[in-house]
C-alpha cells in the first residue's frame, strides 16, 4: 500500500511515469539535474541522456544488493494481479481479502436470495462471506478444468473498460479453446448465429461454446439468457445485489473490483490451461495406444 501511496505522490508532482514501468525505474532515473529545463538538440544530447540514465540505474542496482533483501523481483508488484495470478492450489482466503472481494453493495440493495453468501453489514454495505466464496470458486475451477479436459471451448466475458485487458489476458493464457469478449456482446451471437456469422460458419464451426465465464453478469443479462436458451453452463461473479441463481456456478464476490476480476479470471484460466494439458496427454496416450494396436495387427 505504501508503494501505491508513493506512486500517487510522484504523479501529483507532475513527473511522467507510466504505471507499467514501476516505481523503482523512475526513482533511479530522477536527479536534481533532470528537473532543470534542457533542450535536447541533437543525437549527442540524447545519447548523453541515455548514458546518464544507464549510469544511475547501474548505481541503483549496485546499492540494491546491500541492505534489504527485498527487490522488485521478489516482492509483489501491482501488475502481478494481471500477469502472475496464483494457481488454483495456492488460492487462499487472504488473497481474496487483499483483492477486496468481500465488499458488497449497499445493504438496502441486497438481493434476498444472496443471504446465504453474506457475512453481515459494515459501513452500510453487505460484507460477502468469503468462507462460502472460496469453496464455490474452487468448484468453478474444477468445472473449468473438466470442461477444458474434454476439449470444450470457454468464453471469458467482461464488458467494462478495465475488464477488457483481464479477459484478453485470460484467453491468451489458456491459448486454444479460450475466447474473450471485452466489449459489448452482440445480441444474437448464440441464438442468431446464422445471421451474425453466416451459414457456412454456423454449420462448420462450433459456434456455441461449452462454458461462459462472466465477470460482470448484471450488465450482461442478455448473455445469460442466450446461454440458458442454448444450454450453455455459466460461471459468474455474483455481487450482493444480484440473484445467485442467474448463473449455474455463482462465485459470490465483488464484481466492481478489478483486482478481484483479475484473480478470478486468472485462477480459472490457469485451471483451463491444466485441463487442456490433460486433454493433450489423453490424446497423445490414445494415439500411442492406437499406433501400438496397428503395429500388432500388421
Amino acid at each position: 500500500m505504501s508503494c501505491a501511496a508513493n506512486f500517487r505522490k510522484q504523479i501529483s508532482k507532475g513527473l511522467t511515469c507510466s504505471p507499467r514501468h514501476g516505481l523503482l525505474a523512475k526513482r533511479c532515473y530522477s536527479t536534481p539535474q533532470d528537473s532543470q529545463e534542457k533542450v535536447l538538440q541533437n543525437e549527442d544530447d540524447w545519447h548523453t541522456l541515455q548514458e546518464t540514465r544507464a549510469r544511475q540505474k547501474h548505481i541503483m542496482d549496485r546499492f540494491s544488493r546491500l541492505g534489504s533483501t527485498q527487490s522488485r523481483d521478489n516482492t509483489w508488484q501491482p501488475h502481478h494481479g494481471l500477469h502472475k495470478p496464483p494457481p488454483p492450489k495456492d488460492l487462499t482466503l487472504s488473497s481474496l481479502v487483499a483483492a477486496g472481494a468481500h465488499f458488497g453493495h449497499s445493504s438496502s440493495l441486497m438481493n434476498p436470495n444472496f443471504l446465504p453468501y453474506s457475512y453481515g453489514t459494515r459501513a452500510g454495505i453487505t460484507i460477502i462471506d468469503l468462507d462460502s466464496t472460496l469453496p464455490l470458486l474452487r468448484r468453478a475451477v474444477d468445472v473449468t478444468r473438466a470442461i477444458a479436459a474434454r476439449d470444450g471451448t470457454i468464453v471469458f466475458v467482461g464488458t467494462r473498460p478495465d475488464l477488457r485487458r483481464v479477459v484478453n489476458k485470460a484467453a491468451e493464457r489458456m491459448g486454444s479453446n479460450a475466447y474473450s469478449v471485452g466489449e459489448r456482446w452482440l445480441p444474437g451471437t448464440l441464438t442468431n448465429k446464422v445471421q451474425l456469422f453466416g451459414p457456412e460458419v454456423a454449420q462448420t464451426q462450433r459456434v456455441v461454446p461449452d462454458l461462459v465465464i462472466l465477470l460482470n453478469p448484471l450488465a450482461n443479462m442478455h448473455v445469460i439468457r442466450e446461454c440458458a436458451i442454448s444450454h450453455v453452463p455459466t460461471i459468474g461473479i455474483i455481487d450482493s445485489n444480484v440473484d445467485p441463481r442467474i448463473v449455474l456456478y455463482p462465485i459470490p464476490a465483488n464484481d466492481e473490483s478489478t483486482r478481484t476480476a483479475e484473480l478470478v479470471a486468472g485462477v480459472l484460466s490457469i485451471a483451463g490451461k491444466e485441463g487442456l494439458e490433460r486433454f493433450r496427454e489423453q490424446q497423445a496416450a490414445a494415439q500411442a495406444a492406437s499406433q501400438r494396436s496397428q503395429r500388432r495387427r500388421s
Partner: protein
Amino acid sequence: MSVLGCSRHVMKQASIYRAYATTTSYVPPAADISEAPSGPHQKLKPGSPSFYTGRQNYQDQIRGLESAANLSRLALKKMHLLPLPKFAESSLPPAQTAWKSKITLGGMIGEKLNTSRYRKVTSILNEIDELRRIAQAAGQQTLEESIADVVSMFEREDKETVLARGRRKPVKFDEWGRSYTVGKRKTSSARVWIIPVKAPPPPVSSEAGPMEAEDHAAEAEVTNEVTLGPNPNHSSEPPIPVTTSTILVNGSPLADYFQHPADRERIVRPFKIAGLLGAYNVFALVRGGGTTGQSGALSQGIAKGLAAHVPEVQEILRKSKLLRRDPRMVERKKTGRAKARKAYAWVKR
C-alpha cells in the same frame, strides 16, 4: 390392525384404477445417457480468440497494434529512453502523420469501421508513431525502422502531398539572385521582383562606384552611391557612403505612379520596419483595383520578398502584419439599404 388391513385393501383396490397413463417412471430426456456425445468433436473450433465479439478482424487488428506498441515500449525502456522526462518531450520532432481514410482502413482490416472504432485505431497508431519519433530523435535507426515498418502499412500513399498542403512554399531565387513574390489587397494583385543592391566598393578613390545589377532591360543605369556632404557638427569625419534603391511600378518610378503620400508611405513601410531602406531594388507589375488596393498589394509583395532575402526580418514583419493578406474586401450592397450599411432615410409613417 383390522383397520389398517382394511385401508391397505382399499388402497390396493384404488391402485387398479390409476389416474395416470404410464406405468414406468418418467426419465427426463437430458438424463438419457445413450444420447450423450462420445468421441472427438466433429466441427472445427473458431480460430480467433475474438470470435465471440462479432467483430473478429477489428479486434484482432487492435490486439496486434497494442502488442506492437507494448514491444516498442519495452525496447525503448531497455535503451533507457522511456519514461521520457518532460523537457525531452518538447525536443521531439513534431508529429507528422496522415493515416488512411476510414473506408480504406476498413477495407484493409476487412470490416466496416465506424467513427469511434476508426478513432481507436488511429489513437493507437499515433502512440506507436510517438515511440518511433523517440527512437528517431535518439538516433536508434534499427528500432526506428522496425517501428516504421508497422506504421507505414497504415499511412496514406499521398502522405507527403497531404502534409504539404497547409505549408507555405519557400520563395525561390533565380540565377541573378532575384526573388519573385505576389501580394494582394482588395481586388488588386502585385507581382514583385526584388534584388539586393550591390554594396559600393570601399571609398579608396573619389570616383563614383560600379553600377548596380539590372532588374529588367528597360531600366536605365543609375549610380547608387551618394556621398553626404560634410557634417557641420563633426567636420573631421569622412563622408558616409549610402546606397539608394529604385522602385519601379509598371515601368514608372514610385513617385510618378503613386501621387498620394499615403500610398507611397504604405509601400516604403516594409523597408522602414525591416531597417532595409535603400538595400533592395524593386520592380513590380500591379493590376486591378485602385490606388489603395495597388499600394497595399505592393506592400505585401515587398514584405514577402524581404522576408525571403533576410529571414531574420520575418518575425518583425509578421508582428507588424505586413506579411498578412488583408482580408477586408468591399462589402456587398444589400436589399432594403442604399449601400452595404447605409440605410434609407427613416420615415415615421
